[in-house]
């Protein structure tokens, strides 16, 4: 008998609290809104030998739960090669091929020593505002090598035995358009690690290293057991699902993500062999990122599984080398968010095949990284960079959420009043987008319309988005949502990007607008079975137009706003037959 179940349950809570508190410390002290408001960051506790994720904060970005293990592993390898880690060392890096995601995400990794040994690692990751490269904000849809996406820092020591290496900070600062923001975020991450170190020390004093170590090991075993039980509940067999990215930003050809999902007793196999090979543009992801994205998708479906490496033990991955899902340096990876969102959509669609009662329509499926950059009248550089929202899919319990955040994140959007104070822009619209939710028995949630006017001089506009050609699918008979749409003013009138949702450095003049219309979520179940009263309500609220009510739902709304029962019955009969 190892650790007793009561102590285990208690330590689980205490460890999670430490990770949560690290999250909160960075959110409150970070400089750039992507961390402070959008929570694009994460903290956790990792295995001393393998780097496996043992505990992760609740409020951080879900995608990091899986990738950070790879980041810690990379540090362990490098430190070992240099004679082993020392107490007081803190490593810093953003190499996406070693640690997953993209160059904007800087990781700090700190060994926690106890009695002269590494007890565990603490790590902090946060999305910095600007890390150099061709495009302010680093979402460069035209990149063909990572060198065009920003600086690439391999694991180096930021603190050497407790001594801060200012020269490292100098190098980082010199490579950013926004060095103050970088400096502030870096300090916030150091604050978080300091706090984690202090709290872990207190916990080890209280319970003893041996008991805590046992608990950490046991949590992994339990996580695996929990996941196996969840898989066992699913019917055996193999299902196939595929979905597409619009293009890679360089060549306008679709990229396929395909999954053969096999359930066999307590084991699950996720085989991505039929996916596209790596592409020239920045839609590639590393193997670490692929595994992490699968984890996010599974955790959305099986909510109870913990943020612990054990969860993936019963899952076998097949990700062929050279695939878009397993690239090596220097293939560009800046748009990793789009690829993992598509990957998650594919998992949702596969789950809908085997367990419709646990699935939901796909969410809007693109983060729409939009940046406007220029210089103020006084010469100061400004970069407004934000991610925009869309609808969530319909689900067994009801209609999808309007204007939610992406499944890979818990990000909130900055208040437009804050953006208008900080940058020379004026929003002319910030509203829900009618007819954008995928029709279904339970309708997909609505996407949004954001329209922005430039108030000063000129600015360059960059967009990194997706779902301009392949709409978010519905499941279980539900229909797809509306496509993503982006237009900008030019002296010759309104235009859309050649790559639909990807664009680099288009000049916008004072008084001109850009307009982003985001997808809703996919529907759940056959729209012809939706309660006509619910359709009438949607028409009354302006969520669904009369035309769409007829075309998508077979519901005719009379001039009084009520359902025309006779016409509806006839139209539904005809639609079902068609």
């Amino acid at each position, binding site marked *: 008998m190892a650790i007793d*179940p*009561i102590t285990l*349950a*208690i330590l*689980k*809570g*205490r460890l999670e*609290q430490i990770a949560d*508190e690290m999250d909160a410390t960075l*959110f*409150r002290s*970070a*400089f750039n809104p992507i961390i*402070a*408001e959008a929570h694009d960051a994460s903290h956790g506790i990792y295995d001393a030998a393998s780097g496996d994720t043992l505990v992760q904060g609740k409020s951080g970005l*879900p995608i990091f739960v899986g990738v950070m293990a790879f980041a810690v592993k990379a540090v362990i390898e490098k430190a070992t090669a240099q004679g082993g880690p020392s107490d007081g060392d803190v490593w810093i890096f953003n190499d996406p091929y070693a640690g997953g995601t993209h160059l904007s995400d800087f990781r700090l990794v700190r060994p926690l020593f106890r009695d002269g040994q590494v007890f565990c690692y603490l790590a902090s990751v946060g999305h910095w505002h600007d890390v150099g490269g061709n495009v302010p904000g680093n979402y460069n849809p035209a990149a063909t090598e990572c060198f065009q996406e920003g600086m690439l820092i391999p694991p180096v020591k930021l603190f050497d035995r407790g001594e801060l290496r200012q020269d490292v900070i100098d190098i980082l600062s010199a490579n950013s358009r926004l060095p*103050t*923001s970088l*400096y502030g975020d870096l*300090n*916030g991450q150091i*604050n978080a690690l300091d706090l984690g170190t202090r709290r872990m020390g207190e916990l080890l004093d209280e319970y003893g290293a041996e008991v805590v170590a046992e608990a950490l090991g046991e949590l992994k075993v339990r996580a695996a*057991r*929990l996941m196996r*039980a969840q898989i066992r509940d699913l019917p055996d067999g193999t299902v196939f699902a595929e979905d597409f990215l619009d293009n890679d930003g360089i060549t306008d050809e679709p990229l396929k993500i395909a999954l053969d999902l096999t359930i066999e007793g307590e084991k699950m196999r996720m085989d991505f062999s039929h996916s596209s090979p790596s592409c020239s543009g920045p839609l590639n992801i590393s193997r670490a990122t692929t595994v992490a994205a699968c984890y996010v998708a599974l*955790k959305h479906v099986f*909510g*109870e599984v913990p943020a612990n490496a054990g969860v993936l033990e019963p899952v076998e991955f097949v990700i062929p080398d050279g695939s878009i899902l397993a690239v090596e340096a220097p293939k560009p990876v800046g748009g990793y968010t789009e690829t993992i969102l598509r990957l998650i959509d594919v998992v949702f669609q596969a789950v809908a095949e085997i367990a419709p009662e646990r699935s*939901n329509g796909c*969410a809007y499926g693109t983060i729409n990284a939009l940046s406007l950059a220029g210089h103020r009248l006084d010469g100061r550089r400004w970069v407004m960079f934000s991610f*925009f*929202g869309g609808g969530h899919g319909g*689900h*067994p*319990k*009801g*209609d*999808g959420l309007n*204007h*939610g*955040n992406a499944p890979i994140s*818990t*990000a*909130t*959007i900055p*208040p*437009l*009043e804050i953006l208008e*104070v900080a940058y020379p822009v*004026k*929003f002319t*619209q*910030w*509203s*829900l987008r009618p007819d954008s939710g995928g029709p279904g028995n339970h309708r997909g949630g609505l996407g*949004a319309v954001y329209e922005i006017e430039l*108030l000063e001089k000129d600015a360059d506009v960059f967009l990194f988005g997706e779902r301009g050609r392949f709409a978010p699918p519905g499941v279980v008979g539900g229909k797809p949502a509306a496509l993503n749409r982006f237009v900008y003013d030019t002296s010759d009138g309104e235009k859309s990007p050649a790559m639909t949702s990807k664009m680099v450095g288009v000049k916008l003049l004072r008084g001109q607008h850009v307009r982003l219309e985001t997808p809703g979520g996919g529907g759940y179940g056959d729209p012809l079975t939706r309660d006509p009263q619910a359709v009438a309500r949607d028409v*009354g*609220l*302006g969520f669904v137009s009369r035309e769409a009510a007829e075309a998508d739902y077979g519901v005719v709304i009379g001039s009084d706003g009520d359902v025309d029962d006779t016409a509806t019955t006839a139209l539904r009969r005809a639609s079902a037959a068609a």
Partner: protein
Amino acid sequence: MSKQSYVIGVDVGGTFTDVFLWDEATGRVATAKVPSTRGDQSIGFVEGISAVAGDFADIATVVHGTTVGTNALLERKGAPTGIITTEGFRDVLEMRRRDRPTTWGLWGMFTPVVPRDRRLEVRERVLADGNVLTKVDAREVAERAEALRAAGCESVCVFFINGYANNDNEAVAVEAVRSVWPNAYVTAATEIVPEIREFERLSTATLNAYLQPVVSSYLDRLETALETRGSGGDVLIVQSNGGVMSVETAKRYPVRTALSGPAAGVIAAKAISAAAGYPNVITCDMGGTSFDVSLVASGEAALAAQTAIDFGMVVRTPMIEITTIGAGGGSIARVDEGGILQVGPESAGSNPGPVCYGLGNDRPTVTDANLVLGRINAARPIGGKLDALDVDAARAAIDREIAKPLDIDVMEAAEAILKVANAKMAGAIRLVSIERGFDPDKFAAMPFGGGGALHTGALIKDVGLRSALVPRYPGVTSALGCVVADMRHDRVQTVNMLLDDVDAAALGAEMEAVADETQALLARAGVAFERIDRVFELDMLYLGQTHTVTAPIELPPEGLTVDAIRRAFDAAYLRAFGRLLTGIPVRVMNYRVAVIGRRPAFDMTVFAPPSDRTLDACLVGSRRVRVDGEDVDAPVYERLDLPDDALIPGPALLEQPDTTIFIDPGLVGRVDRFGNVVITQQPGEGDD
């Protein structure tokens, strides 16, 4: 001529209405507990008062902690409300800050309190620097108001983008609405929250409008009922910030009552503990489904600038900061598929409630564990609803759901449930204390509500708290809080300037002027104060950050200076994060002004315990209790009979109608002269 000397506190809860009477002339106190009257709480309210006050004409003041607003929000039972807003922004309320209810799982839903067809736009625009780009047209606004009225709206909120920077357009629009609106229910967003952040401002103002008809008519009924019974006294309402306000103010700002009920409890805890010599307490309110924790440091309750009442229902006004976790008496224990024991957040509530209630639930709860372990008297259930508790059913459920799957015996399993529940509660206490930089060794825990006193002993050991203080009547704590509450008004205004550009002297003068204005509001309420305190604060941040730190500021007679502001910021930032960032400019985001009218101190010796009993005379029996794997015989005492200074070493059980106190082995309870039971470590184990 009546004497008008009664101050009466009334707390209306879900089940009971508690009343606390204090006769200022004689020092007499009386309490009453009557059933709450759902539908119209004013009926139970008046009945409760009649139970303690013979003649309503003797009432000087009635202070009320109300859940009418809270319930209307949680149950979505506010009035039909409309919004008039800037063209292009009708959906701000529904779009929120682009969040979702849970991190994991994408099945979230949200229905705003004002549906889209009642959110109408007008042409107008103010820029972020306060310049009016497009003037609002009063005629257009009036048309929209007419349309909302025709659609059945009883209340309306006017909200414009960047109104915090300049509310000229908003003022014109509000005037235009008032000219056609049939009642007083017109809310101006910047009057409720003149702060940057459109969603938070709109959400708060909308909820204010949504509550106004409901809360106003309730307060009207109350006043009428009191007048009918012959009372000429004032009525005051407890605000979420822990101060009271006049009925007139409450009708105008009903959103400030969102946490009125819980705030009253915290106020009482503050007063009781201060009198007993414990200025630092952590209040622990354990109910059926949740455990609410709040921190009082140096006699002041911690305030939060913003709270979400439910997903997407954000209220941004200062509120007593209450941290809630899903661990109450009804929290369900289970073993998950990974073999880990979990307690909560799922709860059996109070109906069907724990297995031992015999009302249909068969999954074991925290209360069932307390019962099986002997800590609760099966023959004397608190609250008086049931005659007896079913121990056998509770034991069977724990055995089946916990003991068997974990392969331990049933008593071990029951103890495990308590340990996990206690660990969760300890986590909540850590969250408000250690994680905010407060040393637990300087704090006492104060349980109120029915179940808290069973767990406080374990909590002080787990967290390292100095002691626990169990008030004499934990069940009427909130009603007492109403009686002792100060009057308080908070004001906030966005400044949004670099510190170097701030005219500090002018800023200081403006804050003084706002304080004077606010103090006039206090004077109008007609309540006697011992003194009036003013609190000035600035929300500041480094240029580039988005979250502020709040720094207290002194306003010296010779005028405020930029240097003084900078020193205050540095001190606050260091306290929060431990390191300053050099060379980065500081921005002043908001100023905050609070004016507090301190009410005369309440003499807590009215709770003095009887002095004519001996400890032995209070001993009513003994019960076998399981603690740390051992069965011990714990003496049972009648708590309310215990004399002043009685010392009760653990293990021991103290029973009274509204709670049971468990003193763990190794702890000792002492009755103080205010009737509190103070639980500390046994002498010789680190405490005095």
